[in-house]
């Protein structure tokens, strides 16, 4: 098992472009090391991106933030402007594991691990986030909802890696929220996750919305009908019930050790409604 620690994006791409049998990108390592330790996965090459400046910084890009794929959650939770702009994304990231996990785990890793239950992914989807991917032909930018294609599978090619995540800056009237259900208060994998982002006008009328669910289907789900349900309303009780119904309808979960189909579907509605209320309040709609 070979460990490499490139200093630049191009060095990393060069290493990735060589034909190794099993390459793994190491960002926070909180999924990779567990998989290695359990004997479930043994890479031949580990490429640590934490020495690459672009992957380890939170940069202001004028209109957007670029969050390096190797930036740990703890650092995001200390970034005042990010919290102000995307409280839902930050709380979703913060929900992943313990304080110790937060010292290591990253948005990029959470995305590329491609788990259907990843907490930050529905939040990034609702936030219309994108990721910057480096490869042999340079950079490309991809919407987050196009990254995870199946459980454990992503659309990132073997010779590519995610360098950073792009999030828009703060905008008045826009806010997001993320809620997840776990049996304990901490340290569990989401049974259901619900992320809501709304944009409202000064009167509290919804102008736009995006809602995404986690852990209720093989990949994260975008509730396609959410904008048409929410736009033009003040997210009143009746509207939210409609949204909850749409959330349940978009679920396609499995029965597993973490929850039943019935339970996941039912709670998806509850959480979507609650998250929508929080987002609406945060946007100034209360």
């Amino acid at each position, binding site marked *: 098992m070979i460990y490499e620690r490139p200093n630049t994006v191009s060095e990393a791409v060069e290493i990735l472009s060589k034909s190794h049998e099993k390459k793994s990108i190491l960002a926070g390592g909180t999924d990779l090391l567990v998989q290695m330790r359990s004997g479930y996965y043994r890479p031949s090459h580990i490429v640590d991106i934490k020495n690459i400046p672009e992957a380890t910084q939170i940069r202001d890009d004028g209109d957007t933030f670029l969050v390096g794929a190797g930036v740990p959650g703890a650092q995001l939770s200390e970034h005042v402007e990010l919290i102000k702009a995307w409280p839902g994304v930050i709380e979703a990231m913060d929900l992943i594991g313990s304080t110790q996990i937060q*010292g*290591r785990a990253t948005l990029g890793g959470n995305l590329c691990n491609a788990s259907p239950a990843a907490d930050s992914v529905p939040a990034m989807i609702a936030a219309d986030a994108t990721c910057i991917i480096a490869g042999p032909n340079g950079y490309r930018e991809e919407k987050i909802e196009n990254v995870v294609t199946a459980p454990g599978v992503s659309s990132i090619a073997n010779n590519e890696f995610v360098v950073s995540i792009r999030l828009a800056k703060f905008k008045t009237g826009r806010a997001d929220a993320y809620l997840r259900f776990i049996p304990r*208060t901490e340290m569990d994998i989401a049974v259901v996750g619900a992320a809501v982002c709304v944009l409202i006008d000064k009167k509290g009328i919804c102008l736009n919305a995006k809602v995404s669910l986690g852990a209720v289907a093989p990949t994260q789900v975008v509730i396609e009908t959410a904008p048409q349900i929410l736009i033009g309303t003040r997210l009143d009780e009746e509207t939210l019930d409609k949204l909850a119904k749409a959330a349940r309808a978009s679920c396609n979960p499995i029965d597993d050790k973490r929850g039943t189909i019935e339970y996941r579907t039912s709670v998806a509605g509850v959480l979507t409604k609650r998250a929508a209320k929080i987002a609406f309040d945060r946007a100034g709609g209360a």
Partner: protein
Amino acid sequence: MKTHITTTVNGEPEEFLCETEQTLLDILRDELNLTGSKEGCSSGDCGACSIILNGRLVCACLVLAVEAEGQKIETIEGMADGEELHPLQKNFLKDAALQCGICTPGFLIAAKALLEKNLNPTEKEVRYWLAGNLCRCTGYDKIIRSVLNTAEEMRRK
């Protein structure tokens, strides 16, 4: 093929050789004989191997030893200042915040990281900060009280 790593552990320069698959916890315990960090799960779920890596609280079982090149590592063995125990260590003893003691080093390191960041945490903040440290003996009551007591004591100083 082993990799040669140079780091700082508890303020002292340290060198070791490691295989890529070895975790920092393996090296601390087996190569550097720093067995105060405990292995309870090797999956980041119990916090018994909590250390501070470059100022961040992490589980040593989820860090590869090769990643430690040039990094600063703090473990339980470096928590006391010579003969002088850290206030958290003193209060854990006074408050009986340990029973079997296996989780204690992890709790102390995690609590230290908390108090360095926030010397006035609420009970709820302490509980959530320490949620990644499992204790099966105490029901957490005396641990939480002891951290709160220490915070109060340190605020007064």
